[in-house]
């Protein structure tokens, strides 16, 4: 392995950016491809698939055999609101491989009693996200119903290009939220990315079922990262 490739790879991993180490199995030469780098041909197609699935493996391209070792940042799920839905979502998300953290300044809600074994911040999103900023490998679900708590986090998620953004509330509630986010400087294109009402439409009828719908939507968003943007640029 090339020492420079190892340094580059580790720097990307520390910065929570996706990267693939590509090794030519014929001559042992390797290089790091970062997410978003343009690679042509069969190798480019194999790389795009590997970034999406996160699965490492061999690929044949241009008559050569390559090994693609995929390093995706650990996706995290940030939930605004220590509510009933979050109580159901926390264990489900952990099982599905999305470490979850909950932010809610209302200490009556954000208590260790209600959320054993969960990373819990009984603080305002403004304060928590300053220290643990959101990024493209974070998902944000805002479920407090309270604009004072949800709005800042939603705007931060839009700016950080979180791979998933969802907000609880009816269409009417969301229409008012859109107005507020526009007032905060978000663009209509950004606001389009918010899943509202939150969760896949599975007819969820109680907090646990809503949690399933949210988690399914988070997984769908994670496994289709970048595909929407790519389809758009190909159409243009």
């Amino acid at each position, binding site marked *: 392995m090339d020492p420079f490739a*190892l340094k580059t790879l580790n720097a990307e991993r*520390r910065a929570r950016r996706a990267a693939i180490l590509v090794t030519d199995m014929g001559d042992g030469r390797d290089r790091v491809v970062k997410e978003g780098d343009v690679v042509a041909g069969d190798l480019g197609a194999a790389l795009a698939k590997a970034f999406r699935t996160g699965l490492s493996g061999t690929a044949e391209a241009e008559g050569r055999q390559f090994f693609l070792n995929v390093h995706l940042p650990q996706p995290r799920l940030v939930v605004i609101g220590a509510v009933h839905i979050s109580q159901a979502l926390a264990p489900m998300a952990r099982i599905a491989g999305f470490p979850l953290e909950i932010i809610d300044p209302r200490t009556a809600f954000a208590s260790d009693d209600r959320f054993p074994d969960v990373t819990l911040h009984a603080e305002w999103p403004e304060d928590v996200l300053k220290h643990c900023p959101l990024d493209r490998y974070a998902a944000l679900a805002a479920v407090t119903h309270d604009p004072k708590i949800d709005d800042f986090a939603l705007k931060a998620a839009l700016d950080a290009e979180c791979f998933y953004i969802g907000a609880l509330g009816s269409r009417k509630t969301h229409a008012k939220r859109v107005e507020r986010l526009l007032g905060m400087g978000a663009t209509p294109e950004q606001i389009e990315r918010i899943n509202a009402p939150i969760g896949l439409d599975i007819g969820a009828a109680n907090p646990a079922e809503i949690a399933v719908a949210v988690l399914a939507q988070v997984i769908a968003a994670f496994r289709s990262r970048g595909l929407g943007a790519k389809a758009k640029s190909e159409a243009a």
Partner: protein
Amino acid sequence: MPSRFLDEARDPLIIAENWMKDGKDVAIATVVETWGSAPRPVGSHLVIDAEGTFHGSVSGGCVEGAVISEALDVIESGKPKMLDFGVADETAWQVGLSCGGRIRVYVERLG
């Protein structure tokens, strides 16, 4: 800058980079293919220095010993090796995977 999202003390690639900075000779072993039941997924790393110190894993401890001794050769020669491991009595290797799977491990020198 240490990352709170990587377990730097146990991360094989971070350890390999630190060893390199300390001037050590290092080999990196990578699981590049698996068939059937395999304890560690494709992409898993074992890193080895010239003293035989190692971190990470390519199996559940079944073949690490053999990989380490091959790695010392690789550090010496600089030539990468491809190692195949299957159930013990079906391969040329002294060691095997008790789980019945097969794995292919690529061993290369760092630098």
